[in-house]
């Protein structure tokens, strides 16, 4: 499956998920990955197939993990943690 869209989610889809989205973009740029759409929304607006990969904080995993592969952040705004987990996932998927 081709990785085309990453969706970041939090409680109301306003603040935290937006920051995570900016961080994901930052990490993707650093890794030299292009052509992946990144967006953010409320965790409960997520449906199966909404994206190929979800990113959320530890507190949202119960809601999100049902809808597809999910990167769970212990510290939701930590860029190093996101970078480590995201690049592992991308390697696994053969994207980088």
């Amino acid at each position, binding site marked *: 499956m081709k990785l085309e869209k990453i969706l970041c989610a*939090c*409680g*109301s*889809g*306003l*603040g*935290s998920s*937006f*920051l995570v989205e*900016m961080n994901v973009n930052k990490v993707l740029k650093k890794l030299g990955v292009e052509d992946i759409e990144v967006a*953010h*929304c*409320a*965790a*409960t607006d997520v449906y199966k197939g909404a994206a190929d990969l979800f990113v959320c*904080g*530890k*507190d*949202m995993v*119960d*809601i999100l993990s049902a809808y597809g592969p999910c990167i769970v*952040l*212990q*510290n*939701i*705004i930590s860029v190093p943690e996101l970078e480590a987990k995201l690049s592992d996932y991308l390697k696994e998927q053969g994207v980088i």
Partner: protein
Amino acid sequence: MEQFLNFLQQILSTPSILVGLIALIGLVAQKKPIEVVIKGTIKTILGFIVIGAGANVLVGALNYFGNLFNFAFAVQGVVPNNEAIVSLALNTYAKDTAIIMALGMVANLLLARFSRMKYIFLTGHHTLYMAALIAVVLTVGGLESGSWQLYVGGSMLLGLTMVFFPAIAQKTMVKITGDDSIAFGHFGTLGYVFAAWIGSLVGKGSKSTEDIKFPKRLSFLRDTSVAISLTMFIFFVLVTFAAVIKPDFDATVLGGTHWFLFSIIQSLTFAAGVYVVLAGVRLVLAEIVPAFKGISEKIVPDAKPALDCPVVFPYAENAVLLGFLVSFAGGLVGLAILFALQGTLNPALILPGVIPHFFCGATSGVFGNATGGRRGAILGAFGHGLLITFLPAMLMPVMGSLGFANTTFSDADFTAVGILIGNIANFVKGTGLLAVCVGLFVLPIVYNVVAPKKAKS
């Protein structure tokens, strides 16, 4: 020529276009490619129009609710909800809000650069809401809508709130996250600091909430639309029923619908309105926040980003749930107290809104837990629940015509800033009020220059 000037003036006084322009300037300043500039500008304008559309949806339901409540109990009943009150405020103060928000971010940068409160407030929706609040209270205080005095005073005030509140939360933030690299930016801070203070008083020897096992099922209430629908449904059913059983009730108010069905439809209509407003806010912020973040990282690299409240949720998940439930209980007790004051002080009745009690209550639980374990989380969140019931009641009188709306600001800092500035405006109006805003803004900068620096350790 005159026609052209007229056209320019129309552009600058159309709020949605104005916000679009702000986004456009931000995007061009970041040297984004042309297609990104076009996309971002259009989306921002679109977002502002969507907010207005959402306001139209929710205001209908809200008016029904207010009228029925008034008829049934002969008091004003208020559901505090930031999105609802902001969308109403934007009907009248959209241009003022947009300009105060844009200049307020500049004021934030200046304070982060030149004062000791080195924070960049990145919770964009709260910046927008605070800008709307400030536009309302300053206008009521005699700074005319559309005047430069309002823009200068308002943006300085907004910039100050954007560094002041993160600064007072930082001590507890260090305790929660274990380091000093991120700050807390959510305008419920007074409630959280209050909860942390209570926690430090009562919490001696109390164990952390994280040692308790909790059922996870209540987390479905984190779905904001479902939570708003459910609570509004309960409120609507109670209020409509109380109105219907009165002998002089005029059934045409319900448009021939059965009162129970009416309650279902109206509560869901309200939730739908909030949903639409949120979608609009998301669109408006999509370009403005990254631009602000990018610029701030260049100008004030040593500043700490102040972030939205769920940032602290993963550090104490049980405190999140506990804080919500206890804060909500505090809201119910607060409502009972407001009810008991009818006949003497006659405050508006503030119903416990599930969204503020969820997000702010949960956060106060985390803060209370950090300073005082379980006992701190419970009593701190309870105190917070009382606080966000009494503060909105005190805010209503200084909101001008919006004080008669059936909704108001919910989170502690909005209401506290509104009450403070609104009451100052009762004594000093117009230019005097502008002077107060400028004074408050300059104070921390002067302090930084004059006061002795702490020795670096």
